[in-house]
C-alpha cells in the first residue's frame, strides 16, 4: 500500500449559511517529515480503523450520489481542484458544535489493481506548547491545534478498482456516532458523506432479535436463558443507538456463555461486528412475548416488556411462586405450546 497524493483543507462551520465560503486548500508534498509519516500511518491503517460499513444514498430513481460523483472525479484525476468540492461539502455540512477542522484527503495504491482514498478530519482545539531549550522552559498558548481527537475523530475510506458502477460502499470511523445531539451524530455519515450504514436499522435489529430467539431455544441452561430473556425485555428501553450485536451483549454485561449463545446464532459470523442503529419497535415485532414454563407444566406468557408486571415472582429457596391478577378476557385450549 503506498500513499501518492495528500490534499489538505482548512474548513469552517458554514452549515445553513447560504453564501459559499472560500476553502483554503493545498497539496502536501510527500517527504520523510513527521506529518507525512503520521498521514501514511492513517492511510495504511484506514482499512482496519474504519470499521463501520456505509453505503452512499442514491438520489431517487437514478443511480447517483453527489459525493460519490465527486469522489470518482477525484480518483480519476487527482488534483487540489477536484478535491475542493469535497472540502466545500464538508464545510457546508459543519455546524457550530463541530467547529473548525483540518481535512486531509489522501489517495494511493492498495494492492495491484485498487486505488484507496482516505478522508480524515482533525477538529481544531486550543493547546499549550512547552519547549525545553537547555535550562530554559518556554510555555506558549496555541489557538489552532488540530488533533486526532479520541472523542471526535472522523475518517472514511473507499477502495476503487477503476471499473464502472462501483464505489457505492465504503467504511468510516466516527467517534461521535452516538452523540446526544442528532446534528453531531449525523454530521459525518449522513450530512457530509450522504451515506447510511450498510445495514438498515430494521435488518440489523431483526438479525439481533432472531439470534437471541434462536439462542434461547438452543440453550438448556436456565441461567443463560434468564440472561437472554432479561436482555430482550430491557431492550425496549434502548434508544435509537448505533451498535453491533457484540456491543448489545456487552452493554448488558452478559456472561460469556450467554454472549457465545447469541454469537453462535449469527450467520454469517462476521455480522456480529456489523454496525446498525437499534430500532426498539422492530425488536418488539420479533420478540413480542416472553414465556416461562414451570416443572409443574404451568406455562406463563405475556408481552416481553410487561412480563414482570403481569407475573410477580416470589422466590422460596429453589421454587418460585408467580402471582398474576386481572380480569379474565379469554380462554383457550391449544394442541401445542
Amino acid at each position, binding site marked *: 500500500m503506498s500513499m501518492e497524493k495528500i490534499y489538505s483543507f482548512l474548513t469552517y462551520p458554514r452549515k445553513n449559511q447560504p453564501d459559499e465560503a472560500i476553502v483554503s486548500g493545498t497539496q502536501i508534498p510527500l517527504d520523510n517529515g513527521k506529518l507525512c509519516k503520521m498521514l501514511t500511518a492513517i492511510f495504511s491503517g484506514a482499512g482496519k480503523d474504519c470499521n463501520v460499513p456505509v453505503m452512499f444514498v*442514491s438520489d431517487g430513481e*437514478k*443511480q447517483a450520489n453527489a459525493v460519490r460523483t465527486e469522489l470518482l472525479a477525484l480518483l480519476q484525476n487527482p488534483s487540489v481542484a477536484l478535491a475542493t468540492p469535497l472540502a466545500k461539502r464538508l464545510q457546508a455540512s459543519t455546524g457550530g458544535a463541530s467547529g473548525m477542522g483540518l481535512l486531509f484527503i489522501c489517495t494511493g495504491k492498495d494492492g495491484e489493481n485498487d486505488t484507496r482514498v482516505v478522508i480524515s478530519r482533525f477538529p481544531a482545539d486550543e493547546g499549550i506548547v512547552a519547549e525545553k531549550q537547555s535550562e530554559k522552559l518556554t510555555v506558549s498558548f496555541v489557538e489552532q491545534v488540530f488533533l486526532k481527537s479520541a472523542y471526535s475523530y472522523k475518517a472514511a475510506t473507499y477502495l476503487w478498482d477503476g*471499473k464502472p458502477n462501483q464505489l457505492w*460502499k465504503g467504511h468510516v470511523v466516527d467517534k461521535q456516532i452516538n452523540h446526544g445531539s442528532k446534528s453531531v451524530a449525523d454530521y459525518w455519515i449522513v450530512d457530509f458523506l450522504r451515506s447510511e450504514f450498510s445495514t438498515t436499522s430494521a*435488518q440489523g435489529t431483526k438479525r439481533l432479535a432472531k439470534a437471541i430467539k434462536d439462542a434461547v431455544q438452543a440453550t438448556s441452561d436456565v441461567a443463560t436463558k434468564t440472561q437472554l430473556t432479561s436482555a430482550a425485555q430491557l431492550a425496549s428501553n434502548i434508544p435509537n443507538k448505533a451498535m453491533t450485536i457484540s456491543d448489545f451483549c456487552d452493554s448488558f454485561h452478559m456472561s460469556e456463555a450467554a454472549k457465545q449463545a447469541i454469537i453462535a446464532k449469527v450467520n*454469517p459470523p*462476521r455480522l456480529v461486528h*456489523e454496525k446498525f442503529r437499534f430500532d426498539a419497535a422492530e425488536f418488539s415485532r420479533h420478540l413480542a412475548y416472553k414465556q416461562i414454563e414451570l416443572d409443574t407444566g404451568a406455562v406463563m406468557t405475556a408481552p416481553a416488556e410487561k412480563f414482570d408486571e403481569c407475573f410477580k415472582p416470589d422466590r422460596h429457596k429453589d421454587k418460585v411462586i408467580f402471582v398474576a391478577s386481572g380480569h379474565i378476557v379469554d380462554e383457550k385450549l391449544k394442541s401445542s405450546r
Partner: protein
Amino acid sequence: MTDNALLLEYRARHASILAPLAGKLQAHIQEALTGIPRIDRVSARAKSPERFLAKALKRGDDGALKYEHPFEQIQDLVGARVIVFYRQDVDTVSNAVDRYFRRIEGKDLVPDALNQFGYVGRHFILALPEDVVDDEADNSKTPQFFELQVKTLFQHAWSEAEHDLAYKPSEPLSTLQHRQIAFTAAQAWGADQIFEQLHSELGSTQ
C-alpha cells in the same frame, strides 16, 4: 476476453456463486416479508448463462459494446420477484423493501405514452444483503447488487407470456400482433384497476 471465455467464466460463477446465492436470497426476502398479506410468491434466480451472454454482447447505437465490464455493469445477475395480489400490495411490499434493504435505484416501469399499454411494475436495484454472503465468499466475484421486481399477479402473467412470445418470432411482429399484445396488456392493466378498486371498496385496508 473472448465470447467463449466470457461464457465459460459466467458458467463457473453461475454454478459456484450465483445459483446458491439466489437460493439464499429467496429465503432472506421471504423472511423479511413475513407477515405481509397477499404475497402470492417470492422467487429468486441467477441469470442463465445464455441470457447473460446475450446481454453482455449487446451493442449501443455507435456499435460499441454496451457493457465493457459485464460482470460489474449487469446488475441483474441475480434477480428476485415478489408477486402480490393487488396494486396496493405493491406499495406495502415496497415499504418493507426500503426498511430491510439498501437501494441504489427504485422506479415504476410504465409505458412511455399515455395511450400505450405494456409492462407495469416496480423495479429496484438493491445491495446484496451481507446475510446471504458467506464469510469465505470470493468478494471479487460476488455481485454487489441484485434486481428486485415487485408486481401484481396480472402483470406477472402478462409479462411472462409476452417474454415467451418475444423469443419465438423469426421475423418482426405484424401490426395486428402488436395490437393483440397491447390488448392483453390493457386487459391486465384493467383487471388490476378493478381489483384495486374492489379491494378498497370491500374494506380490507390491511
